[in-house]
């Protein structure tokens, strides 16, 4: 079978992306960009005005000294950086897609691995161009629109912020619209299916951003919460299903879907409990309907309760039935950072680790309750259902902790190093004198020693010294200038690993692409199958899970780990 479609679609997408990159590079779309990137453009105007003023002064001074006018280069503003970033990304991906698009048109594919791999590229390009349009176009348009409506007094609140209409939510919505209104083009189908690989890769890379203590605390928290709510909801479905006469296979598949991780658990458990096709359809319809609803409601409620990333991540990770929408809600809540995603994904991983156990439980329950049930090979279930990508996550965590990507002991790529302090960041002689004047205010020998070391070395040399001087900077009577010097000395000794920073950027993009692709697999037809007894049971359990986990999070989960 040949998978590659001889379609010019990939070439067209590549050329469109290249065109956008070129227009940005030439500054031909600056007017559009100034409307879209309003805050960056404000920065640009400020930088430009400052530069022009400095140039004018320098020119006047040169003229007074009868010297030639100086040549100065305007520093890059955030607006310039954003345009350069968009151009760079467009050149890389647009160029690659154009070349592969030309190859597709001229190539005679033969059955094999290469054919399948090439067939996935147009779909990936399709998702990427949607992601670019959403991130660089729709996201700022909605943000500006929400702000404008609020500023004009039409609404007293920013609707874009309240409904979290950021690139993640908009991307998923566009994905859902594409599949339901336009349908996925045949040339893009294989690439769209690849979107789950983006999410798994994102989770694997996420492993580099945890500290051991953080992972241990989040792991314990997630095992506790997921344990209670998974077992609780599986138990409730089993009881409700029996009382409402739903049948063993229906009850079994519904309990897995409602209890563990939604559609994924339904897919894993259906063959084990010998669910009928219609029962699978009812369950998946109910889960998708609840999942999409929760993805919009959860972030808004989270903002109303002013939840921290840990609290919201724990709530979304427990209360949302379907695992794909857990990631969506976490990124919708916190689109600029990935702190919430970090917490939510630990809960997702815990859920998926619970999956083989729950499938085994249901298999035993089904065999006990159903006369004609086929026996299940327990070892096979445990091995086949084990999520291999979790091993990748653990491996990346281990490699990161051992210092492969940034010096060992780093946290999210940030690490302390006195040796790497740049010359221009050293404490200046004038500042040294101010620090010497502050020595008398030190409260103990340790603080005195730390400050003396700083004076002597003109930089921080150890994390202990940094911690001590951070405490010193909080002395109320200390001069503000001294506090500023201590803060700057600390900042100068902390460094950011470029590798981990790149991972962070990739994680955000991978999740955005993955979620758009998964949005393209949520069809209205599948959701419409929700109904009857499964919908009643699913709604009761979904509500109990969402409200119950919210109460537990607000009452018992501290704001940070």
């Amino acid at each position, binding site marked *: 079978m040949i998978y590659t479609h001889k379609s010019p679609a990939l070439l067209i997408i590549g050329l469109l992306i290249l065109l956008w990159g070129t227009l940005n590079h030439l500054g031909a779309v600056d007017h559009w960009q100034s409307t879209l990137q309003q805050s960056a453009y404000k920065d640009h105007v400020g930088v430009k005005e400052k530069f022009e003023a400095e140039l004018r002064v320098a020119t006047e001074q040169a003229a007074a000294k009868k010297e030639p006018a100086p040549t100065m280069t305007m520093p890059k503003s955030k607006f310039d950086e954003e345009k350069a970033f968009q151009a760079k990304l467009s050149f890389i991906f647009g160029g690659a897609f154009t070349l592969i698009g030309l190859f597709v048109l001229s190539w005679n594919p033969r059955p094999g691995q290469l054919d399948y791999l090439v067939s996935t590229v147009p779909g990936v390009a399709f998702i990427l161009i949607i992601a670019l349009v959403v991130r660089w176009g729709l996201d700022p348009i909605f943000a500006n629109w929400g702000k404008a409506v609020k500023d004009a007094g039409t609404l007293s609140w920013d609707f874009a912020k309240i409904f979290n209409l950021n690139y993640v939510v908009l991307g998923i919505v566009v994905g859902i619209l594409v599949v339901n209104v336009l349908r996925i083009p045949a040339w893009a189908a294989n690439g769209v299916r690849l979107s789950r690989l983006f999410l798994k890769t994102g989770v694997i890379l996420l492993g580099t951003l945890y500290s051991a203590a953080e992972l241990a605390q989040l792991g314990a928290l997630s095992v506790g919460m997921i344990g209670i709510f998974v077992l609780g909801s599986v138990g409730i479905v089993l009881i409700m299903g029996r009382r409402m006469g739903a049948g063993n296979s229906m009850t079994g598949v519904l309990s897995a879907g409602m209890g563990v991780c939604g559609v994924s658990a339904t897919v894993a458990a259906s063959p084990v409990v010998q669910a009928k096709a219609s029962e699978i359809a009812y369950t998946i319809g109910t889960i998708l309907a609840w999942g999409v609803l929760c993805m919009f409601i959860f972030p808004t409620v989270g903002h109303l309760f002013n939840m921290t990333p840990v609290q919201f991540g724990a709530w979304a990770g427990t209360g949302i039935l379907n695992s794909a929408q857990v990631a969506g809600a976490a990124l919708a809540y916190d689109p600029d950072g990935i702190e919430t995603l970090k917490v939510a994904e630990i809960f997702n991983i815990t859920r998926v680790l619970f999956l083989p156990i729950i499938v085994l439980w249901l298999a035993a329950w089904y065999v006990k309750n159903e006369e004609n049930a086929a026996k299940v090979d327990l070892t096979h279930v445990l091995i086949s259902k084990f*999520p291999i990508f979790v091993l990748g996550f653990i491996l990346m965590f281990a490699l990161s902790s051992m210092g492969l990507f940034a010096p060992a002991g780093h946290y999210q790529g940030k690490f302390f190093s006195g040796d790497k302090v740049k010359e221009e960041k050293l404490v200046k002689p004038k500042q040294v004198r101010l620090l010497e004047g502050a020595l008398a205010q030190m409260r103990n020998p340790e603080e005195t020693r730390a400050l003396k070391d700083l004076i002597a070395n003109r930089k921080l040399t150890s994390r202990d010294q940094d911690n001590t001087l951070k405490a010193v900077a909080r002395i109320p009577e200390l001069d503000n200038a001294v506090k500023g010097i201590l803060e700057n000395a600390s900042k100068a000794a902390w460094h950011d690993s470029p590798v981990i920073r790149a991972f962070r950027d990739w994680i955000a993009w991978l999740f955005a692409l993955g979620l758009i692709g998964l949005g393209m697999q949520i069809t209205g037809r599948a959701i419409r199958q929700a109904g009857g007894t499964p919908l009643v049971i699913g709604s009761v359990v979904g509500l109990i899970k969402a409200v119950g986990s919210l109460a537990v999070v607000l009452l018992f989960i501290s704001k940070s780990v």
Partner: protein
Amino acid sequence: MVEPTPSSVQPEGGVSVLFAHHGTEGARRAEPLALELALRWRARIDHLLVVPALWGEMMGDDWLNNASTRDAFGDYLEHQLVCDAQNHLQAFRERCQALDLEHRAWLRVGEPVTCLLELARELRPVLVVIGSRRPKGVAGLRDHLPLDTVLRGLNVPLVIAPWSSQSNH
């Protein structure tokens, strides 16, 4: 009831009634009417059973499972659908044989409306029989034929069996 005129009779295949459905309860209830019409006209009955493309969407947005679990689910669901379809076709065949009706079975996978219109164009039956939508409150899958598309696309008469047709006949 209108008898088929010679002009509507196909030259080589004889008169045919196309009974088309995708395994819904409405279709099951339409079977007696389809059989009665075929019997009255001594027509061959062409039985089209479509396995809707909807089933291809049943993995939804699953992303946590590995390939072997997804394959196992796909194989399981396919097996279920094939068994259901074969049972359905076999039961209908037996009813036709009992009535001494000539019968042909067509099993297609795809969009029910597309499959119906394609087969109707190919076979040129004297009429097409389909089931009606289930009334509100009755359990069942929500995947009905878009009547507007069927009416626009068909160039042969269409009979929609009422939900309670069994009791009327």
